[in-house]
């Protein structure tokens, strides 16, 4: 099982999912209409490291974070 958390302005509770790669995550999240606006412009981190490709295998207990557009300062 992996945990998925939604950061900043994405108003959504964390999910716990039985998946083994990010392609599966994309398939699941794309079915959630609330998330449509965020998937196109959010970055993805696995265990707090940004990943740039869906070709990424997940391990048990991985933490996945969605990071929408930022504006510090």
């Amino acid at each position, binding site marked *: 099982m992996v945990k998925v958390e939604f950061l900043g302005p994405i108003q959504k509770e964390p999910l716990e999912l039985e998946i083994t790669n990010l392609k599966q995550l994309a398939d699941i999240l794309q079915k959630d209409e609330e998330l449509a606006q965020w998937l*196109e412009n959010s970055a993805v981190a696995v265990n*707090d490291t940004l990943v740039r490709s869906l070709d990424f295998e997940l391990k048990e207990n991985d933490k996945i974070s969605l990071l929408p557009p930022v504006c510090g300062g």
Partner: protein
Amino acid sequence: MLYLYDGALDVPNILKTWYEAEASSNYGAYIPFVGTVRDESQIEGLSFDIYEPILKSWFITWEQKAKEKGAIIKMAHSRGDVMLHESSYIAAVFSPKRRVALEFIDAFVEDFKASAPIWKYDLKNGKRIYASDRSTALNGSGILGVKK
């Protein structure tokens, strides 16, 4: 060093503390950048969310870049609400010589704006409204989106 505070920054005190901490480190140039909330668009202030684990690792990569130039960096940022004319952000560089400091503060602040995992909200009529028009998608964003 990276310092996060709840609410507005005490700018004079932070600038003084950092200056005094490096007073004997033999840096010839100290350049802080201070960001202050402007009165515009009828806001009452701004509010910030920070994702600390990734902010800290981003900051460590910049500390390493600074070290390669013989420089050091410090940064302070607010969490939560910061009202008009209060300050939410200080980035600073210390280096032996001025050119490194002048170039580094520019690159550091610009990458902060593009990469730091911090989300800004306008405070308007007591509500917290995501500043989507001023926000920048992180590098590599969109991989979970529908392929076109």
